[in-house]
């Protein structure tokens, strides 16, 4: 059977293709363009950063080309049109995938911007870092668009491989190697669950398409158990308790900017795929309500334990790792609501909007961590932040903005994100308690988010610490993230509306 590709197919994969091409270009450029020797990992290699950022910009632009992923939702004000199934049902061209892709692409760009100076200071500035970010980014974008079990699995495995390597990118550092190894082993374990679940679902429906989840099946029992196993697999990817054990170790061992990338991009694409799965499963009525209860239970446990565990951390990366776990918990709330579809499937939009907020504040926080550590992994302890505000008022400010946003303080986009999610939960009726738990958990979280702020502004510094500062990329990243965090609080409405249109395109 000859494959006839039409322009929609090309438009659908264009962003992913550009990202992968960028990854390859960075790898090759690192081989040939040698300003002071390609094998000198302490040089800044700003050409790699440039290539990466340009690639990200191109990929972002590719979302908006006519018949591109976000073209319809963006231009035709209010109507998400142009959704179609491409590549024989493997992928979907819709605004939902486009929205997730946009976040992933921006995260890739910001990670690249902030990494140059940091990696050089660590003496680990190799082109492979950027290559992995972009290759993985391509896979993530595809995952966000994937609509059958095979393409989901292939995309997940591809992106996982890149982040395993990124997690251990500082290969001479024990913690890095250890974290990466754990991540890899547990990842393989979870892939088993995912695959088994997919096999069960396939067994029950006889189809690999997600759309088949909605059809009636001869064996709903097998189907539901399969769905649960798939959820376990995704639960691992997003770091939901009790599948979260790898998160602190992997984040702590990873380069700070890579940790930010892992936290944001992996979450975005995993949640996108998860929402596609639960919406498809929830709409058919075959999936049992028990699935919703399991998801809700995961959300509660993740929010509570993630925040409680973060309380005692003294290492800022571990703290942010647990914070990331807690945020997965918040993000599971709209997933539950999207599964239930009450009062309408739009409620899943909260997740998309929250992920935008999460992108800005998390990348911002990890960039500051990268700046402060400046080539010394011991500088990731809380004490290293003492008195930072006196020496580096802007860096301290950017950190404060990010942390306050993570805590959900008004004036930052994090507040709007939480508000959207909790509001949807409150209106949902049966899942009101999720909002209640979420609000309590966020209250607890304020404590540990404030600790670095207190250290930066109210403690005397122990020793004078140089930080990565004379680097345009890092500074630009911080400017963008803090500006975005504050600005979106005031004009987040259009982004929220776009997210609502996007989520409507899943089923349209």
């Amino acid at each position, binding site marked *: 059977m*000859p494959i006839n590709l039409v322009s929609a197919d090309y438009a659908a994969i264009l962003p992913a293709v550009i990202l992968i091409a960028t990854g*390859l270009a960075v790898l*090759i450029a690192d*081989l040939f363009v040698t300003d002071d020797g390609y094998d000198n990992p302490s040089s800044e290699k700003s050409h790699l950063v440039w290539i990466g950022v340009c690639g990200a910009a191109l990929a972002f632009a590719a979302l908006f080309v006519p018949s591109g992923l976000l073209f319809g939702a963006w231009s035709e004000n209010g109507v998400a049109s142009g959704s179609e199934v491409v590549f024989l049902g493997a992928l979907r061209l819709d605004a939902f995938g486009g929205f997730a892709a946009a976040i992933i692409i921006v995260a890739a760009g910001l990670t690249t911007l902030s990494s140059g100076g940091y990696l050089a200071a660590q003496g680990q500035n190799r082109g492979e870092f950027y290559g992995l970010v972009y290759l993985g980014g391509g896979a993530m974008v595809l995952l966000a668009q994937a609509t059958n079990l095979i393409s989901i699995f292939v995309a997940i495995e591809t992106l996982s491989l890149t982040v395993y390597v990124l997690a251990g990118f500082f290969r001479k550092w024990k913690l890095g190697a250890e974290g990466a190894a754990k991540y890899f082993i547990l990842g393989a374990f979870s892939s088993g669950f995912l695959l088994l679940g997919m096999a069960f679902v396939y067994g029950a429906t006889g189809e690999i398409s997600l759309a088949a989840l909605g059809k009636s099946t001869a064996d709903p029992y097998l189907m539901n158990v399969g769905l649960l196993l798939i959820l376990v697999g995704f639960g691992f990817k997003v770091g939901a308790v009790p599948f979260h054990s790898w998160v602190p170790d992997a984040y702590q061992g990873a380069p700070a900017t890579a940790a930010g990338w892992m936290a944001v991009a992996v979450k975005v694409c995993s949640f996108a795929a998860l929402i596609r799965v639960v919406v498809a499963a929830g709409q058919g009525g075959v999936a049992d309500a028990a699935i919703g209860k399991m998801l809700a239970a995961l959300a509660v446990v993740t929010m509570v334990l993630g925040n409680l565990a973060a309380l005692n951390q003294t290492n800022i990366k571990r703290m942010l790792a647990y914070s990331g776990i807690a945020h997965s918990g918040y993000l599971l709330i709209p997933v539950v609501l999207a599964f239930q579809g009450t009062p309408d499937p739009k409620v899943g939009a909260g997740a998309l909007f929250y992920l935008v907020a999460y992108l800005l504040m998390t990348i911002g926080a990890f960039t500051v961590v990268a700046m402060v550590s400046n080539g010394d992994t011991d500088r990731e302890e809380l004490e290293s932040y003492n008195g930072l505000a006196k020496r580096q008022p802007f860096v301290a400010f950017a950190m404060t903005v990010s942390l306050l946003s993570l805590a959900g303080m008004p004036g930052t986009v994090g507040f709007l994100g939480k508000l959207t999610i909790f509001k949807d939960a409150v209106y949902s009726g049966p899942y009101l308690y999720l909002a209640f738990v979420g609000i309590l958990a966020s209250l607890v979280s304020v404590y540990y988010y404030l600790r670095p702020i207190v250290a930066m502004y109210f403690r005397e510094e122990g020793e004078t610490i140089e930080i990565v500062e004379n680097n345009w990329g890092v500074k630009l990243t911080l400017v963008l993230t803090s500006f975005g965090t504050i600005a979106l609080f005031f004009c987040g409405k259009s982004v929220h509306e776009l997210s609502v249109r996007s989520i409507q395109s899943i089923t349209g």
Partner: protein
Amino acid sequence: MSVDLIPLVTFGLLALVVAVGALAASELLGPRRRDPEKLTSYECGVPIFETAREPFHIRFYLIAILFILFDIETVFMVPYVTLFRDLGVFGLVEMGTFVAILGLGLLYCWKRGALEWD
């Protein structure tokens, strides 16, 4: 016995004959000059009686991985060949892209020095 199975059985018998025949021919026709090294069982050139935790030289793995990688990727060429005419220009471009990516990989290994033993 179903008629359908006849080719399979034939194929199996043929395989058996070839395998046994080859071994037998080697045994019958080959010269025998035995020494202790030759009497040990063959294991890819690695000493066989040793503590199992003895580290290999990493280069073995590198070469092996690269070999498998390129080896398996070229396997994709075979189905392409069977559909060469049907796929037309599209197939040519597609396969060209595939080979180009493969080539980039080779280039990468080469430049990074993965192909040099020392």
